[in-house]
């Protein structure tokens, strides 16, 4: 049991999204493994949101080029002649401040739920300070999003990540690495030459009640508001389902693109809108709206692009399993393996297969779908909990 675990995420800056959710998930889950979990996000996270989620605002925003939320005058890297030096320095200073402010030392841990490039680099340049502070454990969870966000400073960002990890190991730091999906864990293990465990999200919520038996079958695509998440194949999926469902029993729910992208794809949006039985929600929803989507949906469909999600997991997958909603995904995505292994839904070879799967699921009694989800959920979290037990052993 650790005394304190500092849950660190410099990218937790927006008032929505998986970074914010992850802070809450881990604060609750890590109570089993420590006496005091401490959530730490960006200095620029909205004050009210931070207070509501009990997040300390400590990290400089060194990713404004990727996540442009600051004006130029507030961007600490604006005009920097050496982004690599300055970003590393800033996060190093932030981490040292955190170590000091929260008295993180021996018997404590730094926990990065979705580790980012500049944090890894900063850690790779503060071995002496960490050892002087009693060598707190460092947990780096890789999810395939920001760990290579080097803003073009390196020819090969992951090579630099590997170098920093090797430096930390060589310095004798208590470094423990995991990845969100089995495929990514295997890949990192080969890359880093260390054991990498698989750690999807822990149990993020209770199993939801089954949707009531009714004529209507609701299919949702939460978080669909991006091209790589299959936004641009949804029309074909919905239209083809509709051709085979003239009674319009099957209804669809999706989220449109963010405003800056939406205005460039209004024709496509109209085509989606015109398909009978399609409801379109904004690109950003609050937690209550997202919870309602899960509560009211019978099936979650994730036509994510396989080549982009070859190693990456999906927060929606983990949430759907936790809430007890069956999933459809395309072959080749890393989370498809999880869906298949635990019987959490069906993996489809292509879009036509996905269309067939939707129709088949819509004809399956909801009680049967619920039984399958209960079983999948149980098996999934037996393995997830075992993984965390091993990874977080003090």
């Amino acid at each position, binding site marked *: 049991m650790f005394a304190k675990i500092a849950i660190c995420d410099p990218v937790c800056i927006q008032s929505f999204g998986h970074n914010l959710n992850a802070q809450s998930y881990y604060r609750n889950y890590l109570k089993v493994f420590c006496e005091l979990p401490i959530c730490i996000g960006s200095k620029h996270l909205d004050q009210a949101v931070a207070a509501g989620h009990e997040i300390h605002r400590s990290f400089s925003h060194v990713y404004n080029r990727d996540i442009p939320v600051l004006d130029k005058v507030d961007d600490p890297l604006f005009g920097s002649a050496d982004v690599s030096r300055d970003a590393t320095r800033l996060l190093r200073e932030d981490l040292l401040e955190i170590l000091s402010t929260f008295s993180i030392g021996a018997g404590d841990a730094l926990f990065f739920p979705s580790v980012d490039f500049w944090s890894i680099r900063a850690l790779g340049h503060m071995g002496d300070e960490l050892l002087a502070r009693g060598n707190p454990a460092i947990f780096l969870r890789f999810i395939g999003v920001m760990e290579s966000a080097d803003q073009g400073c390196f020819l090969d960002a992951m090579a630099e990540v590997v170098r920093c990890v090797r430096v930390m190991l060589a310095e004798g730091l208590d470094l423990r690495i995991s990845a969100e999906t089995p495929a990514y864990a295997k890949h990192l293990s080969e890359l880093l030459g260390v054991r990498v465990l698989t750690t999807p999200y822990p149990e993020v919520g209770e199993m939801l009640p089954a949707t009531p038996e009714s004529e209507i079958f609701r299919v949702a695509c939460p978080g669909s508001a991006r091209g790589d998440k299959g936004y641009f194949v949804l029309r074909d999926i919905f239209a083809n389902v509709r051709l085979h469902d*003239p009674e319009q029993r099957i209804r669809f729910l999706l989220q449109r693109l963010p405003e*800056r992208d939406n205005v460039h794809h209004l024709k496509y*949006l109209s085509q989606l809108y015109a*398909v*009978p*039985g399609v409801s379109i929600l904004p690109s950003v929803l609050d937690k209550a709206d997202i919870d309602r989507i899960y509560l009211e949906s019978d099936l979650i469909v994730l036509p994510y692009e396989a080549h982009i999600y070859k190693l990456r997991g999906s927060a929606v997958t983990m949430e759907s399993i936790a809430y007890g909603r069956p999933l459809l995904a395309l072959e080749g995505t890393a989370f498809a393996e999880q869906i298949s292994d635990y019987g959490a839904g069906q993996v489809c070879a292509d879009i036509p297969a996905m269309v067939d799967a939707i129709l088949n699921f819509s004809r399956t009694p909801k009680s049967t779908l619920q039984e399958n989800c209960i079983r999948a959920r149980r098996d999934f979290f037996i393995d997830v909990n075992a993984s965390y037990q091993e990874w977080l052993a003090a």
Partner: protein
Amino acid sequence: MKKILFVGHGMHTETASSRFFEIILEKQFQLDRVYLPDGPDHPFDLSLLERARGVDIVVLWQRDFLAPVFLGMGIPTVVIPMYDGSALFPDSHWLFAAEARFANFCLYLNERIRALGNASHILRYFPEPVPEAQRVRFDTTRPIIWTRRPNEGLNLQLVHKLLGSQITSIHVHDAPDPGVSWPAGCPRDESFGYTVTRTQWGQSKQPYLDALAGANVYFAPRLAEGIGMGFLEAMAHGMLVLAWDLPTHNEYVANWINGILYDANCSELHLPTGEAADRLGYQAWRTVVEGRKNWEASIPAILEWIGGTPVPTRTLPNPEALAVEIWNSFFAGIDSYNAFLEDHGDLIAYMSGKAHRRVTSAVHGEIADQVAVKSFTQISRDEIAELRESGRFDADWYIRAFPDVALLNMDPAAHYLWIGKHMGRPKRATQQSRGAAQAV
């Protein structure tokens, strides 16, 4: 009960196309109605503004260009634009009404207006569907076209191009819209080898209605629609709708699911018949069945949206002058109206709360800078007097250099303090200011 001034289009006294919405409004509001005829033969009736002062909310049905006038009077304003009338207006047209609430029957307009930062609510109207037993059948193919806009190419020549010999007969309702002439090179009476039955407007609409009742393939008669009552009624009867691929057709018709869309690139269409046509017709009818339920369920939210329209904060000292100017420029043609908008960038900047440069280069989705401009009512007499007496402000030069000051009928010193200084306008003519005045 709040009182609404409903400002509609003069032609709706004949078509009654806004009547269904007025009935909805009457569920919750007391309605005062006025239907404005088109200028320029009908100058703007300033008594309308007096009527507006007596209500809680102004609702503009298709008269979106008048929104700044009522907003400038400090009256909560709802704008219900139509794609067919307003799609081509520039972003500055919508920014001019930034403090209004919009209710859009067209998704495309809704998204455009929202992207500019305006508050907009999408409406999705469906008529009552016929009972399933009365849904049209497809034992034979019985197309109908009302040649409302033959000048836009929607005529029998187009039908022949698309369908050729796939049909042998068609009903033509030969009734172009008022002011629309038959295009040269397209013979009006040519039958293209089809057996053509014809009707025209007479004393009764019944011949057309009878022909429509006997048809099962409906050619939507216009390139674009504001709502699309005609093709929606056709869908409600389970007809196979063929429509041009523009709003609002393409927001209700999913191509080859519940209708067929075509455009200028389409050289021919394989018209489904029999069972295949019936499938499309059934989906059209089913779309209206489900859509009607959703429309009726959405009415309370629509009324709440309209009832909650906020009071505008950016008012004008002389909305009457603006009303006349806008009306005249609008009905002088699209070029004249666009020129009016370009000439009044500073006024639009003020009304929209966005920086002048953002108005003139409005880009979708960008967060515009806010200009902290006081309402003109907050400019004190002491401030105006101090400026005049300072010797640094040349009122005569200012009013000559910036014609919008005269438009607003304002004291030039008051105008400078209210908005001119925020626009970077100089107080008097200097070597640099002569150039600056020419630039703005």
